[in-house]
């Protein structure tokens, strides 16, 4: 098969295939995981040259310590009101996920994807960015929509492809599009949104506008060519864009090593392009907010793009089609040293004297009821298998702005054939 056998006097080459530390059944031990201290990482000036802050790609910006106390220069010192809003947004996102997951299991729709454990990353962004800034999300940024106040009912309608679905039943569940909320149409093809965000930012900059762009992808998705396109164009044109990588350590069944995590961090990718790059505790919403706010200010000041890696953990399966017990240790979630973002912010607020267990329980209840009510209203408009909620002819609309002859013919043909068949 090879052209020639290995030279006998030379060391044979060996092939390295990364392997995660824990597989199903393994006991999990994160003892040697180095989180760094909360508050330890310096906060550069927003105009800092990327060359002067390369270390930020290898450290971990943390604000909250294990007791929920905020430390250091990245502490954003947000008002308790704002913190409570962020807490509720995270709780709402989690409750929404739970309900929609169950709805899928009940056969009300075809598919669902949760963001459990990663809520802080999206909620922080929604709070740090201006409403006019354009978001190019992946499929796990439902938190952006929720925190931007896009109607939960609309999201459910989309998931059910029902009569109220603004996407006319055309998209799989969770592939939202919400222009009003500055939320770009979600694509099923990984990372395509990355260069698109850069293009939006280039457009805004070239027209002297003030709106910036942000995009999201998972650590696994950084391997796609589009990631490189985005970084290259962002660096060359100093585009006002924030490139967010959610490193939740898993890409379906592949651990982050298969995407390159053994050799370096994902934030370090940005260094290669001369992009300011930071790594942040993705389960610490204060840290996430602070870094995003820094990046937004940097972009608005024409100091160029920022790449942010959020170190977090995908607490649930990849999607309703997945079974994570098949490839990873069930202990990982519990043992994960950066905890849960909701619990950590709750603890912080309690420490500030601005929250307590009772209020938290009340919030959980309110949120659950709200989701339940919204769910009922959405279901009243139909679920996926209730019978088709969209007129058949809508299928032929929006392929082009004006319907060309062939789609008119096809639409007519479909109707005629159904009629002839007596349906």
């Amino acid at each position, binding site marked *: 098969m090879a052209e020639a056998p290995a030279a006998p006097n030379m060391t044979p080459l060996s092939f390295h*295939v990364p392997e995660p530390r824990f597989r199903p059944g393994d006991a999990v031990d994160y003892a040697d995981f180095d989180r760094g201290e909360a508050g330890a990482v310096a906060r550069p000036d927003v105009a800092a040259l990327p060359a002067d802050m390369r270390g930020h790609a290898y450290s971990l910006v943390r604000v909250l310590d294990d007791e929920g106390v905020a430390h250091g220069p990245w502490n954003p010192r947000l008002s308790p009101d704002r913190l409570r809003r962020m807490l509720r947004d995270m709780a709402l996102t989690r409750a929404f996920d739970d309900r929609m997951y169950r709805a899928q299991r009940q056969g009300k729709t075809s598919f669902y994807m949760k963001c459990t454990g990663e809520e802080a990353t999206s909620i922080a962004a929604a709070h740090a960015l201006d409403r006019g800034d354009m978001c190019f999300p992946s499929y796990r940024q439902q938190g952006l929509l929720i925190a931007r106040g896009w109607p939960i009912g609309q999201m459910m309608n989309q998931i059910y492809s029902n009569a109220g*679905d603004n996407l006319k039943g055309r998209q*799989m569940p969770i592939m939202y599009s919400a222009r009003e909320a500055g939320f770009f149409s979600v694509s*099923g093809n990984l990372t395509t949104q990355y260069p698109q965000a850069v293009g939006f930012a280039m457009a805004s900059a070239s027209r002297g506008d003030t709106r910036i762009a942000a995009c999201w992808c998972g650590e696994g998705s950084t391997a*796609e060519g589009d990631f490189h396109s985005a970084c290259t164009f962002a660096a060359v044109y100093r585009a006002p864009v924030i490139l967010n990588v959610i490193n939740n350590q898993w890409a379906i*069944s592949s651990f982050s090593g298969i995407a390159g995590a053994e050799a370096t961090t994902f934030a370090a990718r940005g260094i290669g392009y001369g992009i300011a790059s930071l790594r942040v505790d993705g389960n610490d919403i204060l840290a996430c907010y602070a870094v995003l706010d820094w990046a937004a200010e940097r972009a608005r000041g024409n100091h160029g793009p920022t790449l942010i890696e959020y170190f977090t953990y995908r607490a649930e399966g990849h999607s309703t089609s997945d079974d994570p017990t098949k490839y990873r240790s069930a202990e990982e979630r519990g043992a994960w040293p950066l905890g849960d973002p909701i619990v950590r912010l709750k603890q912080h607020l309690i420490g500030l004297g601005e929250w307590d267990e009772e209020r938290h329980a009340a919030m959980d209840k309110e949120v659950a009821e709200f989701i339940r009510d919204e769910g009922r209203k959405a279901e009243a408009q139909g679920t996926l298998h209730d019978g088709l909620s969209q007129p*058949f002819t*809508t299928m*032929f609309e929006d392929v082009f702005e004006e319907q060309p002859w062939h789609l008119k013919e096809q639409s007519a043909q479909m109707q005629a054939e159904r009629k002839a068949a007596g349906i």
Partner: protein
Amino acid sequence: MSSSPATETRSMNMIQAINSALDVCMDRDPAITVMGEDVGYFGGVFKATEGLQKKYGKGRVFDTPINEGGIIGVAVGMSAYGLRPVPEIQFADYIYPGLDQLVSEAARLRYRSAGEFTAPITVRSPFGGGIFGGQTHSQSPEALFTHVAGIKTVIPSNPYDAKGLLVAAIEDNDPVIFFEPKRIYNGPFDGHYDRPVTPWAKHPQSQVPEGYYRIPLSQAAVVREGEAATMLAYGTMVHVALGVIEASGIDAEVIDLRTLWPVDIETIEASVKKTGRCIVVHEATRTGGFGAELSALVQERCFYHLEAPIERVTGWDTPYPHSLEWAYFPGPVRLTQALKRVIEA
């Protein structure tokens, strides 16, 4: 017409048959290497590669980064070394980032190097709709490959063929796109989405030899003989076609192309010359689909035998919609009407 089928057979679904083909090939030829997203420890999101990493090691079965262009590009380089890569593209909808390496490199390598370098790569990929996958888990992009000189395109319609064709594809010294109709992984599907699915076990073509056999590429199968019309189909649509014929009682012939390109033109020509009528069926969008090529070929070669216009029954010229999936799918209603039109023309 399979060569030396092994005797021991077992009832398999499509996934099991594909898994068995990979296993048998890997066992015979150490050059064969399986790679792709989630294909290693996990065994693939559809489980087609289950158990292979354990059996053949990580040097021959491994997970890749999520980069379809990289997967194909790396496979081309492995071919230059002398391996025979069998990459999986998780869904055919995600093959586009790998298209340049397929079209500009793998397909043309033998030609441009006058045979010095070749790319004996078999790209496996689940394709087609019917699983509520929306526009990014339902596509049938075969026409993008049948247009490219230097690539073969193969699509099986049952477990027996899936194994035999995959073995032949892997052993072929040219790049082969092997699209697996995911709707029929678990059972033949006649397009009646509102009826329970029959499992493969009840289908004769689920009896698959455990050992080595191959079904030569570029040989179609006449899966139903008939006189009234010729239906050209492949993948899932073979079962829809058979179901419609059974229900309608029209004595049409059904040809399962199995290899789309280079297509078995003799079998097609003989059939259409006999029946004088032809329907081409596929799930892909109609305009510029492989059905256009079939229609063009048939009218070029059987013009004086044709008694009715050749009809194409295909997916509509829209993206694959989520909730209107069954209105998009070229199912029994549409096929029955078309068959009647062609017979009565």
